[in-house]
């Protein structure tokens, strides 16, 4: 089926409704828009709640940022993007965290909550997430990954390498979306968090193009991949990120099995660069060491320097 390339005006209209201000290609204007929504006068702000009750702590993490109503308007159609890529322990977003986010959205008066995915249903059954989603009255909307009509071609104006993304069309039916990754090791680029998780909204075909065909011999392979991920993030901006940094693998990622560490943290915020930069420290790395985070920072997507990030630390 012929891919539909939407016109710029229509794209902008849809982008603004999704809080995609950065896609305008105007760094100053996008900064203003971003500041209006989630940056305090002091700079980037994230919340970190530590403790064993992951459900309760998820709620606490969002409350610490001002509450769910700040991110989800009443009557909104909300898309959520948890990670269900593998069923091995420490590789997928915990069901309690997904459950808490759905309940928060309902509390905010969301008219519908949908989990969007081009993974097949077995992936969601294997992790148990499909049951949580359905129990809480949300829906799992599966996208046929082979059907190109289910994806919309979006220009990436600020992309240094990626010039077009193929975004799940269903996303545009929603008013806001919430990024729900699990942080973990990744053999491709050593870290996955909020920014890499958004590849779940980009078509598998486009994602494969982030890997050079001659990746085995091309010296730019990792650099290329990470720049593409950062570029993708310039056209997708979640209303909120709620990150599972509770129990996750730090070796053999993203699929596992691997060594699991248990910091028991829920991290929330809107600044993806800040969140990812903070999360790298949980297993001894720095944001600057991860190319994707560095390139996200260079795109103006957020703050990489932890000293400039306001981190609200709470016990659970």
């Amino acid at each position, binding site marked *: 089926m012929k891919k539909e390339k939407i016109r710029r005006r229509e794209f902008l209209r849809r982008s603004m409704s999704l809080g995609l201000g950065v896609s305008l290609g105007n760094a100053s204007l996008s900064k203003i828009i971003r500041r209006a929504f989630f940056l305090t006068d002091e700079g980037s702000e994230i919340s970190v709640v530590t403790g064993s009750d992951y459900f309760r702590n998820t709620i606490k993490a969002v409350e610490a940022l001002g509450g769910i109503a700040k991110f989800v308007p009443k009557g909104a159609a909300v898309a959520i993007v948890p990670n269900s*890529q*593998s*069923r*091995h*322990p420490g590789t997928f977003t915990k069901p309690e965290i997904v459950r808490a986010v759905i309940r928060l959205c309902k509390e905010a008066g969301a008219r519908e909550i949908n989990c969007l995915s081009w993974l097949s249903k077995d992936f969601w059954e294997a992790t148990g997430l499909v049951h949580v989603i359905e129990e809480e009255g949300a829906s799992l909307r599966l996208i046929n990954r082979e059907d190109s009509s289910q994806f919309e071609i979006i220009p990436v104006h600020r992309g240094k390498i990626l010039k077009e993304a193929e975004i799940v069309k269903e996303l545009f039916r929603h008013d806001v979306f919430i990024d729900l990754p699990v942080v973990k090791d*990744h*053999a*491709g680029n*050593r870290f996955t968090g909020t920014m890499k998780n958004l*590849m779940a909204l980009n078509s598998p075909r486009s*994602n*494969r193009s982030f*890997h050079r065909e001659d*990746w*085995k*011999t*091309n*010296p*730019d*392979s*990792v*650099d290329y991949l*990470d720049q593409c991920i950062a570029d993708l993030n310039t056209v997708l901006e979640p209303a909120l990120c709620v990150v599972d940094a509770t129990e996750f693998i730090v*070796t*053999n*990622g*993203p*699929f*596992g*099995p*691997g*060594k*699991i560490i248990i910091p028991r943290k829920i991290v929330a915020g809107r600044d993806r660069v800040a969140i990812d930069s903070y999360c790298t420290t949980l297993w001894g790395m*720095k944001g*600057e*060491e991860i*190319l994707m985070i560095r390139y996200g920072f260079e795109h103006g997507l957020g703050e990489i320097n932890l000293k400039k990030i306001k981190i609200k630390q709470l016990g659970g």
Partner: protein
Amino acid sequence: MQKARIFTAKIKLKLVKSKSLCFPFWKLQAMSLFLIKVLILFFLSSPQLLCSAECPLCPFLPADGEAGEWRRDGQFRSYSGDELYLYIDGGAEIYHEFGFRRVIVQDYINKKGKSISLEIFEMSDSESAFGIYTFKTGKKGSEVKIGDKALLEDYYLNFWKHKFLVTLTGFERDQETGEGLLNLARVVERKLNTKGSEPFLTSLLPGKGLIETSIKYFKGWLGLFNCYPFFPKDIFPFEEGIKGDYESGETIFILKYRDLEEAKERFLDLKKGFSESSRHRDFRLGNDERFELKDSRGNIILSTSHREFILIFFTSDSKEKERREEALSEVLEHIQRVIN
């Protein structure tokens, strides 16, 4: 099952057409059908017999009852070549870098409903299997006598044997599941009737103080990058490499090249890369084409080339310069002895 039904129907037809039988026809028909059903059940309980032609790895799957009370749960899945991306997505590349052929995945369950996932990866050769084994295993864990090498870590077990890597993952962390991992692993190991050998490069790591479980063998940039993020770009591509950590706190990387000329060329690229890197500092040239510098974590890095190899030596700030140089020289001497 479809093939079995067709086969049964054909037998029925032949029996009906037969005119030469003296034995009561209905008895013969019943006995034949009974025999056919028994044979079908026999084949179904032994996946290796039914599907080995279409599924080369099926013969290695434990049948029901072979590993105590653990029995197959659901149908197996198999992926070969690029299909691995469907199973592991972005995590597939490291397998391809080592040389991946195919994988089979089968779940097992016991009477109490505890679950174990079994993955058998067939790699291109023994060295590749060893390499992906070192990639997937950590420093901690218990070495067990299964295969060519095996490590039981927390809730999962990896072992390699010849060109196969086997991974078993338990979904509960209890003694029963732990024993299940070992039992299933031993059954698979018996079926893999072959033995592998470690790459020659492993012998170049000095043995004294070496933490065996820290060894990483790699065949490309991704493997190296996962050990230490040298640079964003692969500026000194190699044929194969190895890394080992030592009880003294040191780490040795040995990278192999085609020949002396190539090693020298790449060494110059490495030297340039480090000297221009914003993440490294205090770059200094030493004796005999060596250089030294520091990284952002406070590691001192020394490097030199020797024959078709490049050595990169990590040590701590606390060691004096002379002692560092001495340690690197000891490694070079060891390599020379092994090669000679």
